[in-house]
């Protein structure tokens, strides 16, 4: 069914976050785990990123966190590959 605006936005935020955590925080590329919002691993990865970048550690894709994910940055990961 066509997604509502809010649902669409939520989807794109999730995609943004998934790509960001895969690229910079060593998140394994596994689509399913991101769908399960309560996935413990995702929450931990989000918390790790928030801590490293000096954000409030909420484990959620809050506005500040999404805003930082959209900022220009270096392409080298933050967590060792």
């Amino acid at each position, binding site marked *: 069914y066509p997604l509502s605006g809010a649902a669409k936005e939520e989807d794109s935020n999730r995609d943004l976050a998934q790509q960001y955590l895969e*690229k*910079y925080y060593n998140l394994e590329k596994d689509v399913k785990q991101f769908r399960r919002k309560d996935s413990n691993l995702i929450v931990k990865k989000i918390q790790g990123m928030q*801590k*490293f*970048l*000096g954000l409030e550690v909420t484990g959620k894709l809050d506005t500040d966190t999404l805003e*930082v994910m*959209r*900022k*220009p*940055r*270096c*392409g*080298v*990961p*933050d967590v*060792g*590959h």
Partner: protein
Amino acid sequence: FSSFPGMPKWRKTHLTYRIVNYTPDLPRDAVDSAIEKALKVWEEVTPLTFSRMYEGEADIMISFAVKEHGDFYPFDGPGHSLAHAYPPGPGLYGDIHFDDDEKWTEDASGTNLFLVAAHELGHSLGLFHSANTEALMYPLYNSLTELAQFRLSQDDVNGIQSLYGPPPASTEEPLVPTKSVPSGSEMPAKCDPALSFDAISTLRGEYLFFKDRYFWRRSHWNPEPEFHLISAFWPSLPSYLDAAYEVNSRDTVFIFKGNEFWAIRGNEVQAGYPRGIHTLGFPPTIRKIDAAVSDKEKKKTYFFAEDKYWRFDENSQSMEQGFPRLIADDFPGVEPKVDAVLQAFGFFYFFSGSSQFEFDPNARMVTHILKSNSWLHC
């Protein structure tokens, strides 16, 4: 701060870099100087030194690219990932890639090339990202960074010095500096109006201008001189030279420091050197010479020390009788002490401090007085 897993770092302190291609966003010399300025940021706090290569494989290969560009990290169009770099090591390692879908600028109106280059160089030297929001190695680009007086944060300095230690000069400086100690790691600026040279020589049609640990290399076809460390070409040669000259007929450049001299052919130091300068026929009272030049037509080499000069016959390989003579008697208008001498276009160019005296040997007079660095396209 943090270093890459396994703490990769360069096992040498002199590194080479090469700018492989350029962005259309900026003039080439703006890219050159942004990279040079970024290198200097790290040179000033470590024993590391850098020299530029124009071909072949340098330790740090710097290039601009878009989207997929041959490594496993494709760029992503404008914004987001601006550039990336690889930790120290062979081949791709140490290299820096800039995303040319960004708008690269000299100021903060777009993505400032110097700032990103300084950050990426941190990676090329072995630094990973820092969680310190004030640090250059913080992963997010900060467009508000003060560019004119840019300084590394203490976190950056601690990080890089944990890999390479402090610059050599800082270990000798007194705890409380009593006067500005030339750290020996400052790079001379080619257009500094006060610039003087230690020695100057031709080399197979090019001109070499030696200063401290460095030299500028000027060729006929490229007015813009290259800048290198002496040790990058001749690792066994000393720096802070006294004199240098080329004997064309022997395709050899002779380099003098103190009471010794070396012979180099291309970038090979010849076996059997250094030798003592007294083997050339100088009296024991002479402890060093100030300058030298070899007249390729007359096959005579002139050595200058304080207010006197000697003449050496290249055919008989001996110092001529009747010398030393006073410089003022035979080169009127040339003021001792002479730092360096160059023969070109039928003239002798005497360099003394920041001045250069063009001397016409036929008219036996100084025809022009110029700035010493007029040969460096200033």
